[in-house]
């Protein structure tokens, strides 16, 4: 369409704001994500990292601002009574959009009444209405990718935390999302299980997938990310390469934040 498709932003966020009542959590986020970008989002607890991620797949509706996916703005403009303009979002549009943006949660949120493969098939069956055999075959491919083909028939209650999170990743992958969002995917895992999940995420990075990842694992962020965002006061306070942001931060806030996370090693 316009210019080199490789240079076009896959996701473009402009002036994104999110308020919960009086609490202005996001105060103007501008962000461009190009295909293949791996973005690590860091920041203090309560700085709005999860909220930003959840706005990107519209689990939370932005209070203001606009989000474009592949050059198409989500929602439509409407003029309020007082003449100001707001964006409105049709639920059907958001539902379709969420298929294209996968999300992995801190608490896994697997469906406990379905087996591992049932979890991975669910989107293919119910949302994309694929035939059972096809969905099963595809789900098995994704379970194999995360190293859990042999656990296909297990219920989540019988899986370890690391295995649950890998099934959750397979569940997101099954829908062929253009973008993957991870919200602290290893934060609720026992330390010895963190590695297996990070290894899966690393392998997705090697495939060139577009990913945004909120994490407190700064060491992982350093190796994983093509770009690091430091969130503070509801804005992107500092951003750049992992080298720049994590090793040679310019902003005092970033430096203070990193000082408190001295524990990480590259």
């Amino acid at each position, binding site marked *: 369409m316009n210019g080199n498709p490789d240079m076009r932003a896959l996701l473009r966020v402009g002036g994104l704001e999110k308020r919960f009542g009086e609490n202005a959590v996001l105060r103007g986020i501008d962000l461009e994500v190009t295909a293949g970008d791996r973005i690590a989002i860091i920041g203090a607890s309560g700085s709005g990292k999860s909220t930003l991620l959840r706005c990107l797949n519209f*689990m939370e509706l932005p209070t203001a601002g606009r989000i474009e996916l592949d050059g198409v703005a989500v929602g439509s403009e409407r003029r309020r009574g007082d003449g100001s303009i707001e964006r409105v979002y049709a639920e059907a549009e958001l539902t379709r959009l969420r298929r294209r943006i996968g*999300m992995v949660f801190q608490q896994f949120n697997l469906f406990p009444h379905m087996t591992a493969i049932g979890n991975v098939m*669910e989107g293919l069956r119910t*949302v994309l209405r694929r035939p059972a055999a096809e969905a099963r075959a595809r789900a098995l491919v994704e379970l194999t990718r995360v190293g859990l083909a042999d656990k296909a028939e297990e219920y989540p*209650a019988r899986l370890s935390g690391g295995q649950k999170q890998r099934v959750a990743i397979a569940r*997101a992958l099954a829908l062929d999302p253009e973008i993957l969002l991870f919200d602290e995917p290893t934060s609720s895992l026992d330390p010895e299980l963190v590695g297996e999940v990070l290894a899966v995420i690393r392998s997705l990075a090697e495939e060139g997938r577009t990913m945004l990842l909120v994490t407190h694992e700064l060491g992982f962020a350093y190796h994983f990310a093509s770009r690091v965002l430091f969130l503070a006061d509801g804005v992107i306070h500092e951003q750049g390469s992992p080298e720049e942001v994590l090793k040679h931060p310019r902003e005092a806030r970033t430096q203070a934040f990193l000082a408190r996370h001295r524990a990480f090693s590259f």
Partner: protein
Amino acid sequence: MYQWDFAPVLANFDLLALGLLNTFAVTGTALAFGVPLGLALALARLTGKPLLAWPAGLLIEVFRTTPPLVQLFWFFFALPILIRVEMTPFMAAAATFSIQSAAFFAEVFRGGIVSIERGQWEAGRAIGMTHSQAMRRIILPQAVKRMIPAFMERAIELMKTTTLVAVVSYADLLYQANELAQKTFRPLEVLTVAALLYFVCIFAVSLASRALERRLAVSGETTVR
């Protein structure tokens, strides 16, 4: 010393058997209509749309807060006058206990649905499910599992409460037992047998429900948490 004599009761056992069948009929009908109707009421109440939620809430509260006997009388005596249809005792009993069960199940469904953690909704929505798809595929199956003990409890309670239908001359087990007692002059024996029949049926349901709970507990999630 009282001389027990069960022979006249056993000779007329078919009367009691018919009564038991009728008790099953009204209990089964009430469950068959009460469960889906209760789900519909719960969903209506959960929509948050006043036009749906308000009438559903009213119906639920009215039937939960009035005595079953009053409801039964109302359906049997008042409704026919209002809408000019003759109600058979069975129709009145089935209507009363269906709606009353629906009101009860609506609250059980609602409790079960809201007890499912938010993350389950979010996981469903995150893979592109609509609200109703997430409800049907993710939330309800888990909610129903948690509600099984309450369902069973209600089914048992219902079977006992249906003894009220005798007052509108519906020939349930208790009604038949009364008839038989007057016919045989053996009220002690008749009522003892009737009590035994209730016990056997209800105890069987109770055992089945516990077995069901255990089986569900094995396949992954537990019923109650």
